[in-house]
């Protein structure tokens, strides 16, 4: 795409601005998500943990011998 020189600078400036704006917007949105969604779950989790206090363990192993993993999937 050919853009005349004066416009080119304006265009560059605009693009840079849009990047900064994108970064700010995503940071704000992510923070909102963090406070409300993660926060809510976090509080519920913490309450649940208070109820089911675990006593000291005999072992820290987790048995995974009957987990079947499927390599086709990402999870």
């Amino acid at each position, binding site marked *: 795409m050919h853009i005349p020189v004066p416009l080119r600078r304006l265009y560059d400036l605009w693009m840079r601005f849009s990047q900064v704006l994108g970064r700010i917007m995503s940071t704000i949105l992510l923070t909102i998500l963090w406070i409300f969604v993660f926060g809510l*779950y976090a509080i519920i989790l913490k309450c649940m943990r208070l109820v089911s206090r675990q006593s000291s363990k005999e072992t820290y192993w987790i048995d995974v011998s009957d987990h079947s993993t499927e390599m086709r999937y*990402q*999870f």
Partner: protein
Amino acid sequence: MNKPIYILGLSCFYHDSAAVLLRDGEIVFAAQEERYTRKKHDEAFPKSAIAHALEHAGITANDLNAVAFYEKPMLKFFDRILQTTMKVWPRGLRQYHLAMHEWMPKKLWTPQIIQKELGYKGKIFYPAHHESHAASAFFCSGFPDAAVITADGVGEWATTTIGHGQGKDLKLLKEIRYPHSLGLLYSAITYYLGFKVNSAEYKVMGLAPYGEPKYVEQMRQLIDLKPDGSFALAMQYFTYEYGLRMTGKSIETLFGKPTRDPESPLEQFHKDIARSLQEITDEAMLNLARAAKQLTGSKYLCLAGGVALNCVSNGKILRSGIFEDIFIQPASGDAGGALGAALMVWHKQMQGERLPRMQHTYLGNAYSQEEIEQFLKDQGMPYDTVALHDLPQYVAKLLEGENVLGWFQGRMEFGPRSLGNRSIIADARNPENWKKVNLKIKFRESFRPFAPTILEERTKEYFALDRESPYMLLVADTLPDKRREIPAVTHVDSSARIQTINRNQNALYYDLLKAFEASTGCPVIINTSFNVRGEPIVESPKDALNCFLHTHMDYLVLGQCVIDKKKLPPEWKRSSEEYLKQFALD
């Protein structure tokens, strides 16, 4: 004849990205991306390594039968990262932002990135991170049946696993999950000692023999070791779940000293901490070995994952006699995950045949004599050419005494160690060489030890080691009567990190040692990686020449071309300061 089956294994986006190509299960090419991009521990998508792998095999991405990625990205993100965010909430906001900015545009799109970068439309497989580590050890070991221990920082959830390999089958039996991790404990102390995390753990291991295990009891406050091999960290001492640093105030209170500033002088205290950490690591690994024996009943053990690069612990496991023999994957870090992932697909998905034990790690690019000469001519660099059958004697003569040589031959090694194709070599009998190579060639800390290469058949005469150690992954003591003969490779506690060599592994390098032995009687030389501090190991003749010119190395042997620094015209003089600036301190 049937068309061969090609599997491409990839690891990237964490650290040490790499590409590995299998043809009918055999490793035809393996390399880390950092060697091409010249950025140490580069975690970018391994474009160059893939391109070289395909070129080496003479194929394109269309010929690939499968691509294997070394972990499960979705599991890591949705399970561990998001759960950890909730667990540590309301701490960890910054960590959360960083993770999101890493994952949303990039890591969550791993399959799309692979397809786009490769122009590949076929199947992609995702073995779990520790399955990849385990596979990289077991399927390369040649053992028909073996216990497998993997231990690293963290994969998806698992940080430590015990598995059992039988024939083409490999199963993980037990695991320990994040945040409890031997790798992260080691990294946290590395951080506390003022070294770079995920990079300088080696220095801590090298520092340990200078110290006394005075802080083992305090270490026990950090980690609860159960006799059954399992363990848990006391998380109040660690901040890595939510912070950008690994440890904080509470560990400083525990040990009674602040975190060391990077590059500040090392005190006895730091050495004692390093030693105490090593003791705890040894104990944890021995516990794991006993547990693995009990669970599987196997005669043999395979090890992989970053912690398996701790050759001091490996040596202890071997000497404990819990297992008859052990195999340690030489590329035990995450680069080796690429290899393991591909091997998982070959054996478990495709039911491909097992192959004999991996014999060497010379799996990267090679440069022909013509290419090297052409390169030197283009540069206008004066050099001598030595006939191939005279080369070992010629170079052995140069080695005697105090010369330090750059030695560049054949295919590049895969994994973190140089094993005789991209090496700096020197006479191990000269104690001055230790200082010289550390300070004037590698520009690194003076305490760091060097590893010896020894002719395999003479190992027992020099070291308390009764078997081969081709990948420098075992530490054993130098025998008392030999300590004065090879001071430059014997550490303060008289241990050495040994590389044994036989002619099948690397004929030219073996012949060089043989020639050195013939003229001096000594079958041992110093072998260290061909790079300066913070620089990835050299890949091409260009990298090698660059490194040679900017350091105090005396000779460079590129293939059959020998360059003598004393004979170089003054216009080839280079300052090392400028060169070093381009590499971040590790």
